[in-house]
């Protein structure tokens, strides 16, 4: 559960206080932005999505009930908005071209930074996550990165807990497969 201070911000935001919402949002903006960057490959799209999520949060904050963690509620909005955005982008062929360009650029950048092991590792890992399916990407972020309980994730993506465990196992295996070709392999086995 959230701190008293956070509860105060939530209550004030529910009454339409934009300043209180600003304080609340500043606490979660990096979480939201990171999720957006993992769900969408294009940086500009991720930024747009992040703004949409923040606006949606303010408009729907009156619906938030205190019985679940606020972070999980934020993740739920993030998930729904990401899926909507991905659907819209899939319809746009221009976006597909942008993705291809970005990927090419990424490979070049990645090669140039080979000596910087830490940076490369991070990029390889992000790239591997991007190769997963949308829902698997979200599961990896929610479960491993944010460490949300499976019960919360189940409420967010509307799947049973056992289904989530199966999907998590599958995505983990897939991620292992993708990473097996990289230098990260030895860290996992």
């Amino acid at each position, binding site marked *: 559960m959230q701190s008293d201070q956070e509860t105060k911000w939530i209550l004030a935001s529910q009454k339409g206080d934009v300043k209180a919402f600003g304080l609340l949002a500043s606490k979660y903006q990096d979480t939201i932005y990171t999720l957006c960057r993992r769900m969408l490959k294009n940086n500009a799209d991720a930024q747009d999505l992040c703004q949409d999520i923040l606006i949606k949060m303010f408009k729907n904050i009156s619906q938030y009930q205190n019985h679940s963690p606020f972070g999980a509620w934020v993740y739920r909005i993030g998930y729904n908005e990401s899926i909507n955005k991905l659907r819209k982008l899939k319809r746009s062929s221009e976006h597909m071209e942008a993705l291809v360009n970005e990927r090419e650029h990424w490979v070049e950048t990645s090669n140039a930074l080979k000596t910087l092991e830490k940076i490369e590792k991070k990029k390889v890992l992000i790239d591997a996550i991007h190769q997963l399916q949308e829902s698997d990407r979200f599961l990896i972020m929610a479960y491993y990165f944010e460490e949300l309980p499976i019960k919360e994730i189940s409420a967010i993506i509307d799947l049973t807990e056992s289904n989530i465990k199966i999907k998590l196992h599958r995505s983990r295996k897939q991620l292992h497969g993708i990473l097996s070709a990289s230098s990260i392999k030895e*860290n996992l086995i």
Partner: protein
Amino acid sequence: MITDQQENAFKELVKSIGYESAPDGMLSSVLNQLEEEKSISSKPSVVIIPRWAWVIVAVLLIAFIAYNFFYCPTIDLGIISQLDSLQIPHYELQIPKLFLDSINPMIVVTIILAVFIQLVLIKNYYERSL
């Protein structure tokens, strides 16, 4: 079968990506947008047709019906009854005479008030769109 050790290693690996900092100014631009939307929604909307205009319209309508009922028991077709005098295609029509014959004070008052209400309506419409 994945062991707990591997599971933890995997978790650490995913967590090692770390958070990405949201771009500078992104939150403030969102907050400005929300403030703007809030100020627009809290602004009282201008009524295009005020209540008093509806009262005048209702009174006029009732007065018009009453006038026609009490003072014009026979059906007077006005301009239409004089269509015979048009004698088309000879064009012997005297428009000013025809118009003035059919006019009565009630119609004049109604027209003036209708124009006045129209002007108020247009004024309010433009005030609202500004």
